[in-house]
C-alpha cells in the first residue's frame, strides 16, 4: 500500500492544497465513514476553508459529509472525538492553527486519553488539520504549534513539506486509528494570493499511494553537516545547502515528515556520517521540538558529535506583524548558512 518511490506512474504537478484535496477526495470515495467538519469548508460560493483545501468537495459529497460548522472550535474538536469514537473518521480543521488553543481540552483530555482510559477498548480515528506559520497576519494568525502536540502522549504529529508528502501522509492519517495532528504551513499551500508562498508543488502520481508515518526523507545527501527541518524550513535548508555547496560545504538535509512517530534512526545514521547536526524549526526556540530531538541525538550519538547540536528557531517572542520584523523572526537560509559555517569552524 505504501508507495515510497514513484516509478512509471503518470505524474501531475499539484500544489499542496490540491494534493490534500485529492487525498480527502480519494479517502471519502473509498470509505463512507470519512467526512470533513470545520468552518466555511463547504459553503456554496465559499472558499473551501481558509486555504481552499476542501473547495468543490461539497459538490461531490454533499453538505452532510462536508459539514460546515458554527465558529466553535471546542465544539468541532469534541464532536470529531465523539464521531470518531462512534465509528466515523472525521477530518476536522481550524482555519488558522492559532485557534487550536480553544480546542486543547478536547484534544488533550479526550482525544488523546479516551483510548487509554478505556484500557484499549476505544479508538479515536480523527485527523485535525492545523495551518501554521507566519504569513503577514500578526500575532494571532501566525503561530507554529507542533511542539505543544509533540508533548502530548496519544497524539500523532505530521508535518508535510510538499505536495507529494502532503497527499501520502494525509491518506495515512485518515486511515490511522489514532488522533493525528496534521500541520500544514500556510505559505506552502501554493495558493496564488499576493506575496504568498513558496512553490511547494510537486510531482504527484495518479496511482494511489500512501506514505508511512515515522519515515524521514533525505532531501539531499551530504557529508559535512546534517540539517533537520520541517515544513517551510525544509526550503530554507535546501537553499542554504546550495549556497553552502558553493563554499565547499556539503550538507545533508533531512525532513522527518512526522514528529510523532519520529524516525530517529535515519537522523542518527546521518549524524554518524557528518558528526554535526543543525535543527531548524519555525516554532519558537525554547521548549520546541528541536530540544527533544537534540537531546535524543546527543544521548545516542554523544561520541560522534564534533560539536553540540545547534538549533535554529524563531526567537521567544510572539509573531510580529510588520513584514520586516516577521522576516527577522522567521529563520531563513542565511541563518542556516551562517550557522553551518560556524559549526564547521568556517565562519
Amino acid at each position, binding site marked *: 500500500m505504501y508507495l515510497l518511490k514513484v516509478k512509471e506512474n503518470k505524474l501531475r504537478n499539484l500544489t499542496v492544497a490540491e494534493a490534500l484535496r485529492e487525498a480527502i477526495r480519494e479517502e471519502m470515495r473509498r470509505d463512507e465513514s470519512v467526512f470533513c467538519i470545520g468552518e466555511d469548508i463547504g459553503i456554496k460560493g465559499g472558499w473551501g476553508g481558509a486555504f481552499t483545501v476542501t473547495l468543490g468537495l461539497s459538490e461531490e459529497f454533499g453538505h452532510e459529509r462536508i459539514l460546515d460548522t458554527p465558529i466553535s472550535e471546542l465544539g468541532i474538536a*469534541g464532536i470529531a472525538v465523539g*464521531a470518531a469514537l*462512534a465509528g466515523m473518521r472525521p477530518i476536522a480543521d481550524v482555519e488558522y492553527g492559532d485557534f487550536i488553543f480553544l480546542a486543547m481540552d478536547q484534544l488533550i483530555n479526550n482525544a488523546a486519553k479516551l483510548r487509554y482510559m478505556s484500557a*484499549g477498548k*476505544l479508538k479515536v480515528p480523527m485527523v485535525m488539520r492545523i495551518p501554521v506559520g507566519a504569513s503577514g497576519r500578526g500575532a494571532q494568525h501566525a503561530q507554529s504549534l507542533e511542539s505543544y502536540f509533540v508533548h502530548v502522549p496519544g497524539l500523532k504529529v505530521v508535518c508535510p513539506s510538499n505536495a507529494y508528502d502532503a497527499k501520502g501522509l494525509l491518506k495515512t492519517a485518515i486511515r490511522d486509528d489514532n488522533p493525528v495532528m496534521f500541520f500544514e504551513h500556510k505559505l506552502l499551500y501554493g495558493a496564488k494570493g499576493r506575496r504568498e508562498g513558496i512553490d511547494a508543488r510537486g510531482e504527484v502520481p495518479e496511482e494511489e499511494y500512501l506514505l508511512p508515518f515515522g519515515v524521514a526523507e533525505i532531501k539531499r545527501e551530504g557529508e559535512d553537516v546534517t540539517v533537520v527541518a520541517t515544513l517551510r524550513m525544509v526550503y530554507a535548508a535546501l537553499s542554504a545547502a546550495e549556497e553552502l555547496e558553493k563554499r565547499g560545504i556539503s550538507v545533508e538535509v533531512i525532513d522527518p515528515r512526522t514528529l510523532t512517530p519520529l524516525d530517529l534512526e535515519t537522523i542518527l545514521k546521518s549524524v554518524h556520517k557528518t558528526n554535526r547536526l543543525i535543527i531548524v524549526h519555525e516554532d519558537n526556540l525554547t521548549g520546541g521540538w528541536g530540544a527533544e530531538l537534540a537531546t535524543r541525538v546527543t544521548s545516542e550519538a554523544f561520541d560522534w558529535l564534533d560539536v553540540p547540536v545547534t538549533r535554529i528557531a524563531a526567537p521567544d517572542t510572539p509573531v510580529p506583524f510588520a513584514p520586516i520584523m516577521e522576516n527577522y523572526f522567521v529563520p531563513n537560509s542565511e541563518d542556516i548558512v551562517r550557522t553551518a559555517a560556524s559549526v564547521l569552524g568556517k565562519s
Partner: protein
Amino acid sequence: MEKRLPREKLIEMYRKMLRIRHFEDRIYRLFLSGTMPGTIHLSQGQEAIAVGVCANLSKDDIITGTHRSHGEALAKGVSMKSLMAELFARSNGCCKGKGGSMHVGDIDVGMLPAIAIVGGGIPVATGIALAFKMKRLDRVAVSFFGDGASNEGAFHEAINMGAIWDLPVIYVCENNLYGASTHVSKVMKLKDIANRAFSYGIPGVVVDGNDVVAVYEVARKAIDRARKGEGPTLIECKTYHIGGHSRSDPRQYRDKEEEKRWLAKDPIPRMKKKLIATNILSSEKSENIEAAIEKEIDEAIKFAQSSPSPKPEDALRDVFA
C-alpha cells in the same frame, strides 16, 4: 402517570435506584475505611435520573457521564462486578484500573469512560449523535451533566451544534443546586437551566428529578423525538445530592432548611411509598429485593478484592491503537 407503566417496569426502576443507592452507600464506607483508593463523588439522591433516563435506552445507545457517574454506569448496564473492580483499581475493572471512579464506563454496554472535565462530555455525546445520524442508525446519545456544567463554553457550543443539525442527542442536566460548594443561584441569574434551550432553538423541559416516573416520561418523549430525527432536547432534572460533593464533605456550605426540604423528597423512599400504596410492591417483595441487592454487592466486593491488580508496566499500554 404511573398507571400507564407496567408494574414490572415500575418495580424494576425502583430496584435499579435502590441498587445504586446501596452500592454507593457501601463504597462510601469502603472508601472511608481506606480500603478503596482514589476519590469518589456519590450520587445518592439523584438515582431517579440515571434510572429514569436509561430505562429508555438500549445497549446500542451511548451515554457520556461525569465525575459523578456510578449511578449512570449501573443504570446503563455496566456490570457491578467490573465497576467495583474498577473502583478497587483491579485489572478486570471496566477500565482495567486505568480509569477509576471518575472514568467509569464500558462501551460494550454503551457508556464511554466518564469524562471528568466538567462539560467535556457534552461535545463528545453530540459527536456520537452525529455519527449515528450519518450512519442512519436508530440510536441516540445522552449526555449527563450538572448544573455547573451549563456555565461551560462546551455546553453552549455543543448544544448549538446538536440543535442546528437536529442530532439524536439528549442533554440531561442534573441540577442538584450545587457545583462543588457553589450554589447555582450564585453563578447564574436564570432560574431554570432548561430555559437555556431557547438560545439554541430546541425544547427545554424541567422535570422533578426525584420522581423516577416523571423522569422516565420526559426522557421517553425526548428520546422518541430524537429518534424521529427531530433533534435534541435539554432536560433539566431538579434534584439534590444527599451526601454533598465528594468524599467526606461536611457540607457546611449548605443551608440546613434546604437540606431538610430536599431530604424529604428522596426519590427512593418516595417511590417505595407509592409502590406500596398502590399495592405494586409488598413489604416482603421489598425485602427480597434489598437482600438480593446486598448479595450482589457482597459478591461484587468479593470479586473485586480477589481480582488481580494490573502490572505496573501496564501503565505503558493502550496509548496508541
